[in-house]
């Protein structure tokens, strides 16, 4: 039973990340491979405040992490989006590599390659959540919050503006809308989702290390959105649930453990290519 609960909790966390990636890649149409970096910042910030000499409780720490991630995403997207979409590719690769370097080398703050063990379980309004079931419930609450947020935004005028930008940026600009501001706001929102996911991930696993937040993780997030389907809520939910089940399915095949990680990433790559060639809208999405 605990196994199912932890699968659900992880899937819930990845759905939040999927929504975050979907906002950037699917809805605004910016290619991003740095979502895992933002996710990592959220996780490390929460871990830092929970393990500080005078620990904060979980919700304020999560709020701080979300603010950090939002500001990071604004800082990152602002200069490059001003120029051209392709330059953002460089920015996002750069941020991802830089974040991995910080997570691995800044030993004092992040524990370096060994990671940070012993992150205390979250407490909500004085209650300490320690069983897997309670943690799963917390993650599912986060999931509902994120999904509700996403759904509301997509119905709001702001959501329509974002969709319009993806269809025809020039026309939107000609209609007097501020394209850059809308894009940066979407990126900020994506940062908030990723920060929340990061905080929950850190407390759920009680251990974080740089390998969860590297380029491969970003590629996994992109694959989730591509497989599930871009631009829809359903797509961002289906993708993570399917892809998180895949390593389990793979472990039934007889693959030597030394190449298991490479084999998994290889499959993500093949999925990306196949879906782009034959079904760019994914399983339940709209055309990219």
């Amino acid at each position, binding site marked *: 039973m605990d196994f199912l609960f932890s699968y659900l909790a992880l899937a819930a966390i990845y759905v939040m990340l999927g929504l975050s990636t979907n906002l950037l*890649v699917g809805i605004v*149409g910016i*290619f991003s*491979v740095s979502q895992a970096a933002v996710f990592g910042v959220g996780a490390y910030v929460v871990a830092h405040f929970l393990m500080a000499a005078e620990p904060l409780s979980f919700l304020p720490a999560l709020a701080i992490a979300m603010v950090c991630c939002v500001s990071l995403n604004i800082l990152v997207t602002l*200069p*490059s989006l*001003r*120029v051209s*979409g*392709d*330059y953002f*590719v*460089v*920015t996002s*690769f*750069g*941020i991802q*590599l*830089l974040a991995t*370097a910080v997570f*691995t*080398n800044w030993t004092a703050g992040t524990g370096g390659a060994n990671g940070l063990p012993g992150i205390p379980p979250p407490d909500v309004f004085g209650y300490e959540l320690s069983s897997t079931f309670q943690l799963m419930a917390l993650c599912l609450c986060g999931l509902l919050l994120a999904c509700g947020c996403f759904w509301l935004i997509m119905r709001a005028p702001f959501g329509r503006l974002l969709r319009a930008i993806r269809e025809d940026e020039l026309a939107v600009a000609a209609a007097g809308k501020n394209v850059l501001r809308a894009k940066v706001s979407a990126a900020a929102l994506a940062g908030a989702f990723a920060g929340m996911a990061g905080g929950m991930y850190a407390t759920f696993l009680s251990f974080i290390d740089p390998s969860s937040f590297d*380029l491969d993780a970003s*590629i996994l997030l*992109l694959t989730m959105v*591509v497989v599930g389907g871009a631009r829809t809520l359903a797509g961002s939910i289906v993708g993570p649930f399917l892809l998180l089940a895949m390593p389990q399915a793979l472990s039934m095949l007889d693959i030597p453990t*030394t*190449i298991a*990680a*490479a*084999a998994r*990433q*290889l499959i*993500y*790559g*093949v*999925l*990306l*290519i196949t879906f*782009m*060639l034959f079904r*760019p809208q994914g399983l339940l999405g709209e055309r*990219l």
Partner: protein
Amino acid sequence: MLLLQLLINGIVTGCALGVVAVSFSLIYATTKIFHVAHAGVYTMAGYIAWWLVGRGAPDIVALLAAIAACALLGALIQGLLYAQLAKRRATHLVVLIASLGVLAVIQNIVAAVFTPNILQFAVPWAERVVSFETIRITYPQVLTIVVSLAAYGGVMWFAHYTILGKRIRAVASNPFLAGITRLQPNTVYVYVVAIASAIVALPGVLVPLDLGLQPYGGITPLLTATIAMIAGGVGSISGAFMLSVAIAVLQNLSLLVIPGEWSIGITFFIFVIFMLFRPTGLFAAAR
């Protein structure tokens, strides 16, 4: 003395990066595709050469075979993937994601076949060193400078004085017009990606001679090269090459004050500065 040594190291790295930047710039300026998978082609070159050298092939044969294999790989990527995507009217974003997919596939095939650990070339002459007083330059470093400068000169000559080179520049400047005048842009795209992939095989083989091979080691050079391309001005071959050398030299000199593991930060800092103050690059063609 340390300063001079770092300067020389920077020039060596910069020349190799310059070739990566030039080849990437050829593809980007012509096909308008941000060919992320180029990092995979770069990695592949080194591993093919390593495998052949391990099987007892002469060094020069290994290099030539790697170049040929990379050209073929590039042509396949363009012909089977990018051309198909273009036929389906895929958006820019879709092409980018597919390219990232190719990168993941190449890197992980390499990692699965050759293990993810660092491999060293078993080439005896690679150990030899030219030294002036305290400054040491290895043979592969000398070779890297010579070959890179030759490759840069070759690309310049090719682009300006050969029929195919002129055809490529025509397609780059206006694919539609080139199509009407029977320059066949789609064929040209295959040629360009194949040629650029062949060129990137040179640093792909020469750099690992000195530093060893790693399956995921192609991304940082490609990122630095794209930054150099943007800072030099998209479409300017000389700009891309010169800025690569400048960035690599700066990176190496920064080792005096900042530890090496943060060099990606320096590169990225340069990029942000350019984004803020000169987003069109130093040598951008007039528009």
